[in-house]
């Protein structure tokens, strides 16, 4: 459908991805990726309007993926919403526990995710355009 915004969901858990898709697809077009590598490729190719990124992923974790997204000029302008558990991350904080470094994401949401809240946050991201 035209005029519908595109959202890329990058998360290694299929069930969760499915849930998010169902939550979003009434309003957005949803593209999915199940790891960081795939996520980067799809970000470049599909050029979404927003990205929902899980911070905890094997192989390439969310932190690195986010860095690369922001580092790549093609994708750097796309707003990113980080999904985070409390353990690995300071939640809404910009700092990771492990590295103590900043993440340049636009927003953070803690798991378990309320789908309504997720929709609201994505809309908020897109409004900033």
């Amino acid at each position, binding site marked *: 459908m035209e005029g519908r915004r595109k959202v890329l969901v990058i998360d290694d858990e299929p069930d*969760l991805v499915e849930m998010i898709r169902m939550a979003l697809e009434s309003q957005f077009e949803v593209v999915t990726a199940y790891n960081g590598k795939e996520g980067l490729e799809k970000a470049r190719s599909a050029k979404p309007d927003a990205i929902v990124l899980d911070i905890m992923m094997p192989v390439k974790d969310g932190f690195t993926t986010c860095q690369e997204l922001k580092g790549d000029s093609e994708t750097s302008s796309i707003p990113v919403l980080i999904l985070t558990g409390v353990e690995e991350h300071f939640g809404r904080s910009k700092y990771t526990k492990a590295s103590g470094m900043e993440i340049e994401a636009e927003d953070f949401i803690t798991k378990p995710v309320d789908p309504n809240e997720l929709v609201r946050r994505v809309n908020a991201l897109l409004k900033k355009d």
Partner: protein
Amino acid sequence: MWARLKIPGGLPFRSLGSKLIFSFLLVVLAGGLASTMIGTRMVGNTIMAEAQKKVRHDLDSAWMVYQEKLRRIQDVLHLTAKRDLIMRAVTGGQVEVLRQELERVRIDYGLDFLTLTDKKGVVLTRTRTPYQGGDFQGNDEMVRRALKKEIVAATEIVPQEELAKEGPELVRQVYMEFVPTPKAKERPETRETSGMMLKAAVPILDINNNILGVLYGGNLLNRNYEIVDKIKDIVFKGERYKGKDTGTATIFQWDLRISTNVKDKSGLRAIGTRIARDVYDQVLENGRAWIDRAFVVSEWYIAAYEPIRNIKGEIVGILYVGTLEEPYTDLRNNVIYSFFGVAFLGLVLVLFLAFFITRSITRPIGKLAQATEKIAGGDFSHEVSIQSKDEVGHLAFSFNRMTRTLKDTMEELYVLNNKLQELNRHYLEMVGFITHELNQPMGVLKGFLILLRDESLGPLVNPNQKKAVATMLRNVNALINMIQKYLQLGRIESGKMEVNKVRIPIFAEALSSILEDEKPQLDARKMQMIVENEEAFRKVEGEADPVLLRIVFSNLIGNAIKYAQEGGKIWCGFKEEPEELLFYVKNEGRGIPADKLTKVFEKFTRLEGELEQRRGGTGLGLFNAKEVVERHGGRIWVESEEGKWANFLFTLPKGGKGESSLNR
């Protein structure tokens, strides 16, 4: 070598050994001293008393010698007087015969003079040159009595004129110049001219017992050493002690030494010296015997002096015997030295004993003390080697047993502790892992249930479906809450929980995400969240661990939502205090009874009531919040008006207080 034990009060000694030894010493010294003094005193007195008794007996023996001599003279005279020849010669007036015969008698029996008077007392003949005769002797007391047919014998002082009649040699024999004697009584005379005689007088009787005449005679004692030497031989057996005569005898004519075997410094008989004043007074003046120690010429003697009386009973001289004091004092001193020696030996022995006994006590005690130190220092391998079978040995044995037990127990504990640490670590890892893993499926469940409930996936066609979904969602939320809280608890209670304090904007880092997360709940229950003092609140920065601080806000706000009534208000605010930052979460609602205001912060405490049971809850929310706040160095408490409102407040110290990292 003795343990240095501190003893409060008591003797001022630092060691048990010193105390014991000192006490021993004291007792022994005191006892020894007392007994020695008493003993030596007693012995000394006894010895000296015995010495004096002996001297008394010696004097008695001396008297016997003296009296015997006198008796002998008497007997000689008596027997001579009874001789036929003498009787006839006297009757016949044969002076020449008498003279010859009597002189023979005189010389045979060693008399100094022998004189015959007629029945009127006129001297018929003398028996030594110049053979004077014709003088009247009837005034002499002894002659007078003999004329009365009495046989008498006694000591008599004979003046120079009379001596001259008996014989001029006798005059010379008695003449004695006084030798200056320091302690003697002052006397005007400087020499003695009269003599002291042992004299007897017997009557010569005819067959009809008529008096025919008197025969008298005797020996001069002056310069005559027969008696004193005999006394010495008999009584003292001529013994000597360290080159000195053990016994001496003296005959005094009044206070003048006229016959003695006391030697002066040049070794000659000390005649011519006079007696000491105190003896003079008691013996010559008062007529009493004197027995005491006396310094005679150059030595100390135990002396006995007794007056010599004449026929009339008048005191004319003194008989003295003395026994050398030195043997007795030596004996006494030896006894004393022996006493002291024994006492000293005893003391030394006791000291030795005390030393060893004390050591046998203090050494083990010292060892025990040392061993105890070692144990206090954590070394449990040390054992005490004390072999004795007494109480101390027993103590040591028990001590070792205790040590071994301690050691085993400590080792067990150590092992157990390690296991425990390990288990705890595993447990926490597990908890962390599980809860984290649980979150994933929980998240999915929750998400789908919400979608279902909101009919995003299609309509729910009947009330049962709606109810089912609502119930499922409620339970999933409860599960998620439980997992969250246990995760918090795990983190708080883990031994290696770190409070990573960072300087953060409190609102942004700790509160805002909570507010966002709770927004759906708030809306669902039509509640209002009011942030007070918002401007300052948003600006304030503090030293805190953002993850942990978020737990606090999350729990407090979660509680507020849970326990407030529908449509009620919740206030969340901040106030700056001089030393700390104050935060609070207040809600309208049932409030908390006054007696539960502290109890609510306890682990696993939930408010009672049907409502609470339904809403679920772990009883950990406030406990965890309290732990976190206190780890930050702050305080947390609740104020409440029952039935109206409850206000939870906590503080964070400004700058640098509390714990930054903790290994519990």
